[in-house]
């Protein structure tokens, strides 16, 4: 549904995006992760056809963006990281403005506006002037604008920045709901917890380059050579520590009271063997758990590795 081939954007001597290639399947929520200035917004702007790439190609729903700009814009919903609104319009007028810009005709237009107002929870505020809305409400209104023409593809640049915790949860739920409706979403964020629950594939960008891309499970598997175990010991703490330190696969041990945090090189079999050795060695283990890496940890491990 979304495909870029060797995408590159240069601003004079500065290369904002370099040879970025990614593919997002229909119905996926793709998280573009990276620090500030990594090139996420530039990439999204090129996907939304408001910025021309210096080199490379972008295909959305099989359409070459460069050649089919108008058609592409009709199927894309774009929400930038910073946006302005017309304070002298009401919420409904603002949505009507963009519905008309996306060539929706009556009665579809009114129906879509009502539906979107329900989805973003601004139905009660429909006749309120935008100038009187709070920041969170404006954010939701912008999301409503993005959805008003029922686009196949959503490009959301830091959609939850500035939202309160409740708003973030609602945003996550909304994204899942949109996924169920078959929408393809590309979402960028540097707040990784935002993406942990919703993305089924991610791309990690740093300095304009795609470091890693794939499903969350794929990437997790790639980095699984390092696994973190949390072990709680009832008796035989010193014995347990000695046994773990003697094991070649153990990289690091952190002791906090009766709890051991152990970084081990290997997979699930390795964890099972380690538990077996501890028990046969006379250590009474009350808890043995493998920590599951979320997107944040994946990002930190990959980026840490890159840096080193």
């Amino acid at each position, binding site marked *: 549904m979304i495909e870029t081939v060797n995408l590159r954007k240069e601003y004079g001597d500065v290369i904002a995006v370099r040879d970025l290639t990614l593919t997002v399947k229909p119905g996926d929520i793709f998280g573009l992760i990276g620090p500030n200035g990594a090139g996420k917004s530039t990439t999204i*702007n090129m996907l*939304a*056809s*408001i910025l021309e790439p210096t080199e490379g190609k972008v295909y959305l729903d099989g359409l070459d963006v460069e050649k089919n700009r*108008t058609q592409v*814009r*009709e199927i*894309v919903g*774009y929400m*930038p990281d*910073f*946006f*302005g*609104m*017309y304070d*002298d*319009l*009401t919420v409904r*007028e603002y949505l*009507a*403005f*963009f*519905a*008309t*810009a*996306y*060539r929706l005709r009556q009665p579809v237009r009114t129906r879509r506006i009502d539906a979107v107002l329900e989805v973003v929870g601004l139905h009660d505020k429909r006749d309120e002037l935008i100038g009187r809305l709070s920041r969170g409400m404006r954010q939701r209104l*912008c999301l409503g*604008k993005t959805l008003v023409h029922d686009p196949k593809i959503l490009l959301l640049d830091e959609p939850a920045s500035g939202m309160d915790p409740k708003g973030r949860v609602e945003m996550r739920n909304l994204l899942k709901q949109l996924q169920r409706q078959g929408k393809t979403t590309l979402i960028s964020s540097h707040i990784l917890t935002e993406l942990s629950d919703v993305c089924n594939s991610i791309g990690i960008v740093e300095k304009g380059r795609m470091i890693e891309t794939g499903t969350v499970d794929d990437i997790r598997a790639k980095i699984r050579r390092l696994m973190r175990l949390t072990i709680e010991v009832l008796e035989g703490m010193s014995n347990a520590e000695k046994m773990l330190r003697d094991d070649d696969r153990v990289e690091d041990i952190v002791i906090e009271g009766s709890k051991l945090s152990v970084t081990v090189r290997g997979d699930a079999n390795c964890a099972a063997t380690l538990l077996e050795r501890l028990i046969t060695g006379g250590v009474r283990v009350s808890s043995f758990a493998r920590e599951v890496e979320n997107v944040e940890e994946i990002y930190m491990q990959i980026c840490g590795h890159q840096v080193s």
Partner: protein
Amino acid sequence: MESVVGNPYLRVTLRARLKRRPTMLLSVVWVAVVVLCIELNYFLYSSPNYHLYPSLPHCFFSIFFQLLGIQLFLALFPTAYYCSHSVTLERSTRSLPLLRATPLSGYAIALGKIATDPSRIWLLLALAVPFTVVCAVIGKVNALTVIEGYALLLAAGFFASSLGLLFSALGKMVTKPVQAGGAAIGLIMTMLFLSQSLYFYPPLNSLAGLSPIPFLISSIARRFPLILAPAAIAEVNPNVNFLGAEVRPFAISFPMYALLGLGCFIGASRRIADDRVPVLSRAQTVCAAVVYELAVCGMVVNFFHPVRSFTGRRLAAPVTGGTPMLTYSLLALAGIVVAALIVTPNRARVENALRKGVGDTGWLHRHCLGDAAPPFPLLAVLFALALVGYGFLARMVLTSAYSPLSRASLAVGACMLFLCATTFSTIVQSCFLTRTRQPVLVAAAALAIYFLLPTVVSSVFQLAAGVVRWIEYVYAINPIHALTRSFAARLSNDPAFFALGASVYVVLTVVLSVGIVYQTRAVARHVERMRSL
């Protein structure tokens, strides 16, 4: 067609803005002004004390042109003002990307901007149509003139709004100069409209005649066909003499406005569609604003061209006078400030150059701040001398009306203006260096007083004379009439009055020069310190 029918600005924003409360209020005020204009003229026709119009059709013929003039003012100035921040505002609030992500083309966005940002002005123009048409019918104005007049209004509005939009699309910085220019000219226009009716004693205006700028402006204005339409309106005649031939100015002007507007519109649309990073530098944007001001000042000038010379002889070209002088003076002042801004490099460069002793900061600083530059007090004295010379030369020119000497004064006047500008720039620059505003405030005050005082004085005289004359007519008090006539005659003909005016100027100039010298001393010391670093 799709960009018109399916344009969200026209379908949503326009309607939304027009139904807001301020629009309603403005509309009511506007209709009241139009009605007042008609009422006033009708009063002048029907009152036994006035014999301004010989018949009712004459009265309404004149009202038609007056209404057209007011509408032309609306179409030209406020529209440009509103559009001059259309795109820059979208850029600064970051709403432009949202627009550009829609299927709307650059043309559709530009059209929408032109239609909606000055929407209240379009509404006011539409509201005036019935009044204008009724006046045209009663005044027996030729139907072709009415059509041409409205074509002119539309074309002028399109031109002004497209020009504003183009400037707005060109850069981030252009908003302020264009807004300031538009607002200043709008203010002047309003003042001139008000004072036009009080224009009873033209000889008094010579009090203000201390500048060759009118000659400079009039020479531009006479060669600028776009001014023909306002001239026709001011003359209350659809035909005017242009370069020796009788022409219909509305018919000539509107295609020109339309063509110019189309060029600006296409440029603005392309710029919006591309939205490249604004490339205009600070100086370029200011220059663009100056061009804009020049484009409209010709029209402003010719609105009020029926002014008279010393002897009361009506001149063939716009020359000088009391109220128009205000226009010239303000334009000159604006020109000096703008020129000063253009030639003033930024502080970091100057400081760096001073530290390194490198005269790499442009002409001004090589000559004004470099080692070979004269000290600041000397510059201030030069500044004062320039003003004095400038004033006296203008007086010489005035006494010979529109002679070859006046033509020669153009070049001299321009040189003097440049000297003023560079000196003023130096003072502005000194503010950057010392981080204080006093020098520039003093310099600005000096210029303002110098240029505006005579105009203000003469305008006050005219205002008072107008009021007195009104009282005379209403209450038929002849002694006051005789008294004011005698006073006016003395002001017009007595050389002592002119000598008094000139003396005031000399004193004023000396006082202001001393002030500037005092202020710039500190600057000179600072520059010396910088040089020694």
